[in-house]
């Protein structure tokens, strides 16, 4: 920031604002969108026919076999993709090859682990009308149910004693094809099958406060304890199940049409961009909250495909990471005293829903804070300043256990290890939450705990966490502080970072991965 820098756009829930940062603030922008693959269908065919360290897919298919296709659920990409979804294109290509090989026994599973079930319409959006109509009515396209003990198989334990329990159908298939969308470097690899199709019994080995706090960062699977565990489980899993992994990477082309200005740098805004920004900002401010919510829920992105790779999990994932890093990585020289982040309207767990206070915290302190490689953007005991209204707003349909977690658990403690020891089991085994997870569209009872563990590294690392413009009560319940303005927030953290701190503003979304050197 210098004297000539215009006010910068900051995402702030279902809206955004223009903020003038202190002079000298370092702004980290996400990289420009990479050029997309021109012929997507050709790229998919090429990946299926020329896989990495695997026979071509047609050679793995034969009549009479059991084929299971698992795919990433609605939590990615963010925002959802304009139709046709890349998963649809891949699934259709796989099914065509399967049909040519005479494979009759095919089932499609949304690998939602402990996420909520997808509604029929949401499934249709992912797999497309043709696949939906062919499989859904016969019960061959469905959500994974981590509480359906009759349909889970325990494949064994890792050398660290971690249980590997996954979908029985997937475990007993002759071939498991996994269709992944890699929006950020955290996804894909062994995380796909050994987490997406796993039960609580498996997940608790790595989704816990100890593992999460030592996962530095989630975006680097070689430095993340969670990923180490998933990789160990993947080894066990692939000893029993033949997995054909298909991973895709997307570019940063998130906001198009009237929202295109959101992914440009402010000083590059044309008059049209400025007009769009002002019009959108004012319209959003004037719109009733329901309409505002609908506007953001309806956003669909025009992502371009930057790569598709298939074959054995590890080499496929290496290629994927190359692409993701090429798209997201930004070199950042040194840590700063303060990191500033705007939390936008959407996160992985509130698609078609509400970003409740815990999800807002997870988005800011779990995802954005951890969007680094090497070291966090903010120094140890530095301050993080976040923007989001953090309203007391919960979806009883999607997040029933979150309400109780917020009211009951956080009232007692905000320390991840303490709440894990005292409350996690109760919530994980609560019959009401299990009932809602299995029959309604609720996240599993234990899910808010995972969201809280997700922020444990930030809680441990940061000296101060202040939210600008947030609901004071909700923020206090989570153990944070709120300020009305950025100046107030900087004043509040001055006791730990001084009056002239070095400041970095992470200008996302679109996504970025700070490579802090």
């Amino acid at each position, binding site marked *: 920031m210098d004297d000539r820098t215009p006010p910068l756009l900051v995402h702030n829930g279902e809206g955004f604002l223009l903020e003038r940062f202190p002079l000298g603030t370092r702004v980290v922008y996400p990289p420009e969108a990479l050029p997309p693959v021109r012929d997507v269908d050709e790229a998919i065919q090429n990946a299926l026919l020329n896989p990495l360290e695997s026979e071509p897919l047609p050679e793995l298919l034969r009549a009479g076999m059991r084929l299971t296709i698992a795919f990433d659920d609605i939590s990615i990409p963010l925002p959802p993709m304009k139709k046709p979804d890349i998963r649809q294109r891949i699934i259709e290509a796989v099914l065509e090859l399967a049909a040519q090989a005479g494979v009759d026994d095919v089932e499609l599973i949304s690998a939602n682990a402990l996420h909520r079930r997808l509604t029929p319409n949401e499934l249709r959006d992912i797999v497309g009308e043709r696949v939906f109509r062919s499989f859904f009515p016969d019960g061959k396209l469905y959500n994974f149910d981590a509480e359906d003990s009759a349909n889970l198989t325990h494949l064994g334990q890792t050398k660290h004693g971690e249980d590997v329990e996954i979908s029985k159908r997937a475990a007993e298939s002759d071939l498991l094809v996994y269709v992944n969308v890699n929006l950020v470097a955290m996804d894909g690899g062994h995380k796909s099958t050994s987490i997406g199709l796993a039960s609580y019994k498996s997940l608790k080995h790595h989704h816990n406060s100890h593992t999460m706090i030592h996962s530095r960062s989630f975006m680097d699977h070689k430095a993340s304890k969670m990923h180490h565990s998933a990789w160990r489980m993947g080894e066990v899993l692939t000893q029993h199940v033949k997995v054909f992994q298909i991973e895709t990477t997307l570019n940063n082309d998130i906001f198009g049409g009237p929202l295109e200005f959101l992914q440009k740098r402010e000083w590059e805004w044309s008059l049209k961009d400025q007009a769009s920004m002002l019009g959108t900002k004012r319209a959003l401010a004037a719109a009733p909250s329901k309409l505002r919510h609908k506007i953001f829920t309806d956003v669909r992105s025009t992502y371009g495909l930057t790569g598709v790779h298939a074959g054995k999990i590890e080499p496929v994932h290496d290629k994927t990471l190359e692409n993701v890093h090429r798209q997201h990585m930004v070199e950042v020289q040194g840590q700063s005293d303060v990191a500033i982040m705007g939390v936008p309207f959407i996160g992985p767990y509130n698609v078609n829903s509400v970003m409740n206070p815990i999800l807002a915290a997870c988005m800011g302190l779990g995802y954005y804070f951890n969007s680094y490689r090497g070291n966090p953007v903010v120094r140890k005991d530095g301050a993080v300043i976040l923007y989001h209204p953090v309203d007391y707003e919960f979806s009883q349909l999607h997040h029933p256990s979150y*309400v*109780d977690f917020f*009211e*009951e658990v956080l009232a007692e403690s905000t320390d991840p290890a303490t709440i894990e020891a005292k409350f996690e089991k*109760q919530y994980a085994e*609560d*019959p*009401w939450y299990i*009932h809602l997870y299995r029959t309604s569209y609720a996240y599993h009872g234990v899910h808010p705990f995972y969201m809280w563990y997700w922020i444990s590294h930030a809680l441990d690392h940061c000296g101060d966490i202040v939210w600008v413009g947030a609901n004071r009560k909700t923020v206090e319940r989570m153990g944070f502080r709120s300020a009305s303005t950025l100046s107030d927030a900087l004043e509040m953290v001055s006791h730990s970072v001084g009056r002239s701190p070095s400041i970095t503003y992470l200008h996302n979304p679109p996504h970025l991965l700070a490579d802090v050197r």
Partner: protein
Amino acid sequence: MMLALEMYRSPAKFLAAKAVGGRIPGILTGPAAPLRLVTINEPKAERPGWARIRPILSGICGSDLGMVTGSTKLYFSAVVSLPFVPGHEIVGELLDDCEDLPKGTRVVMDSVLTCEARGVELCENCVSGNTNRCDRITVGHVAPGLQTGFCQDTGGGWGNMLVAHRSQLYAVPEALTNERAVLVEPLAGAVHAALRAKVQPGQSVLVSGAGAVGLFATLALRELTQAGRITVVAKHPKQRELARAFGASDVVAPDEVFRGVRRSTGAFRLKPDFGAGEFLLGGVDVAVDAVGSKDSIDTVLRVTKAGGRVVLSGMPASGADLSPVWFRELEVTGTYASAREEPNGRPAFETALELAGRAPLDGIVGARYPLYRWREALDHAHSAGRLGTVKVAFDVRAS
């Protein structure tokens, strides 16, 4: 002659009190209250077994406030005799020898005026020790009155003197302070409620309300039963603190009851159509209503599991939805005062005296007023929860 507060017959004031209910306590304890400070003749203790008592401290109970605010049902008009001196939670000093109790003994009083006190042949309930269910509370040589404090002849704790029968009296151990002793009567009621609740080992209990009745019920449930999780519904910060001190496992706000009980019991929570109140499938094994309001009773009926037990400990309001009683086959039980022969084989007062000696009751009597400051006292009692007070009492000796 003695100074006393007297409840008298005044249809106009009664109607005024009923009309404004508990909404404007300043008016109720002011010109609209059917209560007055008077100098009247002292009650006489002429029959064998009766003695005079000079109250030291006399508590203000919810039922006393109910009378003043007109929320007491007309049902009870047949079992009181106006005018009377209210006050049934007392610790006082005997002014006469009373059978085995010598003059000067500090006593507390089981206020129910049973057959024995009335000098009539014992009714079936009195014979069996269920003295609080006495059927003869309107006959005998004492004017009609379900308890001392509602009877024209006996006087009450809100006056400088009252009379009581030996069967009503319990000597106070020397170590027990007056501030603790004045709580023995409501504690005895809580002992009775806890035992009537028939809580089995490990059963979950909800206590709705954290006024004196609810807090003491929580204490008694924790002390006298092997209840598992006890959840208390408390509105105010001090009440929440005390509920925990008295043995609550969880404390929830009134608008969190369904969430809290559902969480602690793993029940299913259902929301009917058209704004009808939600309810649980599953829930607590036993619920104790210590408020008596329609909302509170509705709530306890809706969060008790099928076949569970609901104990009405507060004086109940009308208009509660009884659908759950039918649909969930609930067992609804009332508890009134306390009995001489409780299920543990002892008078509730004996158990209560022991509890009063060892429970964390210091500070529970949060304010003391002389009789002539009665308007302030009743105002304070009316807003006790909000003001962080559990029990307001008259300091009769200072009057």
